[in-house]
C-alpha cells in the first residue's frame, strides 16, 4: 500500500518560548488543496503552530522547535532551507489587513519586486491575475495607482490575499483573517477561501466556530498546547470524540 501524500506534516513537534512549553508533541498531516481549520481557546497554541509552518516565530527571542515539519516531504527547519524561499511557498494573511502605504498595484507586486522581477508585462499580468482571483479586480482596476489605504477593510484584506497569491505559493496560512471585518466582507473572504482551495492548500486559524464549519474540510482542536482532536469538520461538529472538544464547540468551556 502506497503511503498517502500530505502537503504538510508535523511530526513530534514541540515548541518553546523560553521555558514555556507552547506546543506538545503535535502529530498531524494536512491534506493538499483542502482547507484545514485550527480552533481552540486563546493561548492553546493554534497560532503558534500556524506560525511554525512558515517559520514566522524564528525571530522571537527564546523560541525554539523540536521535531519536524515537512512541506512536500521536506523538513522546513532543515539546514539547507532558506526562509525566504520557504515563504514563497507558504504565504500568510494576518488578522488585521496590513497593506503597505503604497499604491494598490505596488502592494500586489511587492513580492515580485523583492524577487527582482522588473518586466512590466509580467508585473501587470500577475497583478491582474491575483486581483481577479480575490474578486477585487472589477472594484479596483481603474484605481490601481491610488493608495491601498483608501480601500475598505474588507477590500484591504482581499488585497493582502492577492499580495500573498502574487508570488504563487502552494500553501496559504490565514490567522483569523476575518475577525476585523463586517459580515459582508467576511462572507466574501469565505467565498474566496472556498474558491482558492481548488488550487491552494489553506490553513486557517479562527475563533469563529461557524466559520470553521462553513469553510474547512478538516478541523483541529487545540487545548493548552496539545492537539486534542483532528477530524473531518462535519464529524467534529456533529459527533466529536472527546468531551473537551464537545465542551468547547458547544460553548461550555471552563
Amino acid at each position, binding site marked *: 500500500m502506497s503511503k498517502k501524500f500530505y502537503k504538510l506534516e508535523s511530526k513530534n513537534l514541540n515548541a518553546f518560548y523560553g521555558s514555556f512549553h507552547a506546543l506538545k508533541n503535535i502529530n498531524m498531516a494536512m491534506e493538499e488543496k483542502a482547507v484545514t481549520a485550527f480552533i481552540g481557546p486563546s493561548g492553546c497554541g493554534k497560532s503558534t503552530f500556524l506560525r511554525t509552518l512558515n517559520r514566522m516565530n524564528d525571530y522571537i527571542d527564546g523560541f525554539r522547535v523540536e521535531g519536524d515539519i515537512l512541506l512536500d516531504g521536506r523538513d522546513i527547519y532543515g539546514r539547507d532551507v532558506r526562509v525566504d524561499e520557504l515563504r514563497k511557498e507558504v504565504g500568510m494573511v494576518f488578522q488585521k489587513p496590513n497593506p503597505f502605504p503604497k499604491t494598490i498595484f505596488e502592494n500586489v507586486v511587492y513580492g515580485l519586486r523583492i524577487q527582482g522581477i522588473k518586466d512590466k508585462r509580467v508585473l501587470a499580468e500577475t497583478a491582474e491575475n491575483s486581483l481577479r482571483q480575490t474578486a477585487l479586480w472589477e472594484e479596483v482596476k481603474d484605481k490601481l495607482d491610488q493608495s491601498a489605504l483608501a480601500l475598505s477593510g474588507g477590500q484591504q484584506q482581499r488585497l493582502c490575499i492577492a499580495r500573498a497569491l502574487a508570488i504563487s505559493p502552494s500553501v496559504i496560512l490565514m490567522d483569523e483573517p476575518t475577525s476585523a471585518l463586517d459580515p459582508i466582507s467576511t462572507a466574501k473572504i469565505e467565498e474566496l477561501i472556498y474558491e482558492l482551495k481548488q488550487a491552494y492548500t489553506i490553513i486557517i486559524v479562527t475563533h469563529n466556530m461557524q466559520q470553521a464549519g462553513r469553510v474547512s474540510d478538516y478541523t483541529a482542536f487545540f487545548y493548552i498546547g496539545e492537539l486534542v482532536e483532528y*477530524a473531518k469538520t462535519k464529524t*467534529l461538529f456533529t459527533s466529536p470524540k472527546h468531551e473537551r472538544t464537545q465542551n468547547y464547540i458547544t*460553548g461550555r468551556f471552563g
Partner: protein
Amino acid sequence: MSHIDIELDTLRGKLMEMWDLVEYQLQSGREAMLNADHDLARKVVKLGKKVNNYDVKIDRMCENLLALYTPVAVDLRLVLATLKINANLERIGDTAEGISMYVQNRVGTYNPEMLDITRAVIMYDEALAMFHDCRLAYIANDTDQARAILKRDKMLNKIYRKSEDIIAHYLRNNPASIEEGLALLSIIKKLERVGDQVTNISEEIIFYQDAKVVKHKSKKKNKDKEDRSDDMQSQ
C-alpha cells in the same frame, strides 16, 4: 448554567409536558374502549387540540434555537431529536383520538371473547408500557433501555399479523359482529403503529445520546454500515 442550557432545558420540559398529555390520552383511550365510556372518549378527543398546540410550539422553539444559537454536536442532536420525537408524539396522540372515536361510534363494550382471542388488551397494555418506559429512557438518557424498547415492538407486530385471520375466522361464525370486528381490527392496526412510533422515539434517544443512527438497521443488517459510520471516524 450557560444560556443555551437554559433554552434546551425549557425545550425538554415542554416536550415532557406534551408527553404527559399524550400518555394520558393513550391510557384513557384504553379505559374508554374497555368500559365504553363516551365521556372519557370525548375528553381524549378534545385534548387533541392542546397536543396540537404543543406540537406547533415545540417546532417553533426548535426553529428559534437553530436560528439563534446555531447548536452543534450534542446540542444539535438534541434539537433534531426533539423535532422528530415531537412529530411522533403528536401521531400517537392522534391514534388515541382515533381509538376514542371508535368508542364514541359504538354503544356497548367489546365482546370479551373477541378481545381475548385477538389479545388486543395485552397488545394495548404492552404499547402503553413501551410508551411509558420510553419516557423514562428519555428522562434518564438511558440508551440501554431505549434499545430494549426496540426489541419489544416485535410482540405488537406479531399480534397484529395474526389478528386479521383470527377476526375473520370469528366473524365467519358470528356474522352479527361484523362492525365490532372491523372496529377492533382497526384499533389493533392503530396500536401496531403506536409500537412503530415508540420505536422511532427510542431511536431518536439513541441518536441524541450516542450519536448513532440505529433506524432502518434491523432490515438491512450490517450490509451498508459504511454510509454514516464512515463519517464518524476521525482522522
